[in-house]
């Protein structure tokens, strides 16, 4: 019955969204009023959610197929439905209405404005900026090159130092390795930790580490390393989960213990994808290292933010040029290496 539960939650949410949008549109409260009455809106949200769930339940009782049930119902139920054109189905209209309302709310929330986009003053500003950036100040080139080396090695060290941690953790967080009463909780714990670590952006880690070890490339490298450990461990462990069982069974049948089974049954199957992911991670880290530099992580990013703050656009142009060339080269190189590894 769990699909029914998902259906009710989904349909309820789609109802409450449309209903509350309509309410807001009619009363049109100011942002101040909205902040003030947030708790009331929350109560209203819960109330309408219950109503929405009730409606969904009643509709499927009457035999309508709502969008929620269409999404979540199991395959054996899907077989029973005839093929009907979408505009003759309830779920089709539900989808259209929810999507339309989402789009309209999106336009309002992002203050979408065609007028601003076509404003001639703003456009001339961009042209001036563009002209300055495209006439780079080459006197800065040696300094930019020196700094991009810092960035490249930040990314390199972050990747290399992340490998041993990620390698070990990848087996601890793979479902097919961590079985049994002890293993499964460990799997859940490590997976959740990785997801939390990854949801904290490298930029935030850089802020944390710049307080800890001081502003500079070391802080940026540590930030990238933490992020790389979580990302690599997750990608690695997904590889571990998709290995074929045959070699594992074969090694186990020889009387190997758990560690031997992992080493001989799993590692040979995942080692190439691991290398491939790692090369790609270095490539990603070079790009992220630039961003990390914006908040004090060292490297070319720090240099860029200094000149951007002073609106020295020709210098910014030089830096952007150097970054673009390096990122392009890294991208090509990593693509070639990964292709060769297949």
């Amino acid at each position, binding site marked *: 019955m769990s699909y029914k539960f998902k259906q009710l939650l989904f349909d309820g949410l789609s109802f409450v969204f449309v209903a509350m949008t309509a309410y807001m549109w009619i009363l049109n409260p100011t942002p101040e009023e909205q902040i003030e009455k947030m708790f009331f809106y929350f109560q209203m949200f819960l109330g309408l959610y219950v109503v929405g769930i009730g409606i969904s339940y009643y509709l499927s009782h009457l035999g309508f197929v709502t969008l929620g049930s269409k999404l979540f119902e199991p395959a054996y139920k899907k077989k029973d439905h005839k093929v009907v054109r979408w505009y003759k189905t309830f779920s089709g209209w539900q989808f259209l209405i929810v999507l339309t309302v989402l789009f309209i709310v999106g336009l309002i929330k992002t203050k979408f404005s065609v007028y601003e986009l076509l404003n001639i003053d703003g456009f001339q500003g961009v042209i001036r900026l563009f002209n300055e950036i495209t006439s780079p100040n080459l006197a800065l080139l040696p300094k930019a090159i020196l700094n991009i080396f810092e960035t490249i090695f930040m990314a390199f060290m972050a990747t290399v130092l992340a490998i041993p941690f990620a390698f070990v953790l990848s087996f601890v967080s793979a479902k097919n390795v961590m079985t049994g009463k002890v293993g499964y909780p460990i799997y859940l714990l490590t997976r959740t930790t990785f997801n939390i670590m990854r949801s904290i952006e490298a930029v935030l880690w850089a802020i944390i580490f710049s307080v800890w070890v001081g502003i500079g490339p070391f802080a940026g490298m540590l930030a990238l390393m933490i992020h790389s450990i979580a990302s690599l461990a997750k990608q690695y462990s997904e590889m571990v989960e998709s290995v074929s069982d045959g070699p594992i069974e*074969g*090694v186990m*049948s*020889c009387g*190997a213990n758990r560690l*031997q089974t992992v080493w001989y049954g799993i590692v*040979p*199957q995942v080692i190439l994808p691991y290398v491939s992911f790692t090369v790609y991670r270095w490539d990603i880290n070079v790009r992220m290292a630039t961003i990390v530099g914006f908040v004090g992580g060292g490297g070319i990013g720090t240099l860029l933010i200094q000149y951007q703050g002073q609106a020295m656009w020709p210098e910014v142009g030089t830096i952007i040029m150097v970054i673009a060339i390096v990122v392009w080269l890294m991208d090509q190189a990593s693509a070639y290496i990964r292709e060769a590894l297949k």
Partner: protein
Amino acid sequence: MAEKTKTILSVRNLTKQYPSGVKALKGISLDVKEGEFLVVIGLSGSGKSTFLKCINKLIDATSGEILFYDDQSSNNANAVIDICKVNAVSGVKKIRQKIGMIFQHFNLVPRHSVLSNVLMGKLATTSTLNSLLGHFSDSDRAEAQKYLDLVGIGDKAHIRADQLSGGQQQRVAIARALTQNPKVLLADEPVASLDPATCHVVMDYLKKVNQELGITVVCNLHFLSLVRQYATRVVALKDGQLVFEGSPEEITPEWFEKIYGAGAQQVHIN
């Protein structure tokens, strides 16, 4: 010939129910005699594979017992082990060491060399640290090479395992199992993914292992023609139950129909 009548495995009321609710084995009882070439036949899904994997604990049986008469020369009471009751890691390791297995899809480690694959038969007797570093003793290496020579691919020792043909891979798997010095060799559909010609080569090596090394073989097979040629005794499973036990010659067309269902046709491999 009195030796041959000794029981090495004694299976009693073995059942296996999978978490999905499927009952693969519904109370199997049979004896495996030392030194015999026992073939298990039956349709796909009759429980043949489950039966074999229960013996070396790749699958844990639900109930019943499998008595393994490990060392019959001594009067030690510990020489009889109920495989179904063994749960400790060391116990499972000991059983797997003495009961080797080969598989339909060979289950070799593809990126390792043939020799390295065969040396995996020594994992149970090598320390974890040494095995992770790939340090195997010279005598282990010599033994691995000896069994590779025995199955006729001694010259392929340093080739990557996935570069070999199917039949050669299965021979590597046999060598791997032999390196364990097992008393029993389980073979789960060893020729089902091989072409008819290679099929006989592999079966001949199993026969050689059985006759020259005296290792008891329990083998799942599809083809009845192979059964007649290689088996010393046959059992048949149908829907998780034992429906036939006897010599290969005793499988008459009537029995064939009973085991495989009415309308089944015999396929011959020559």
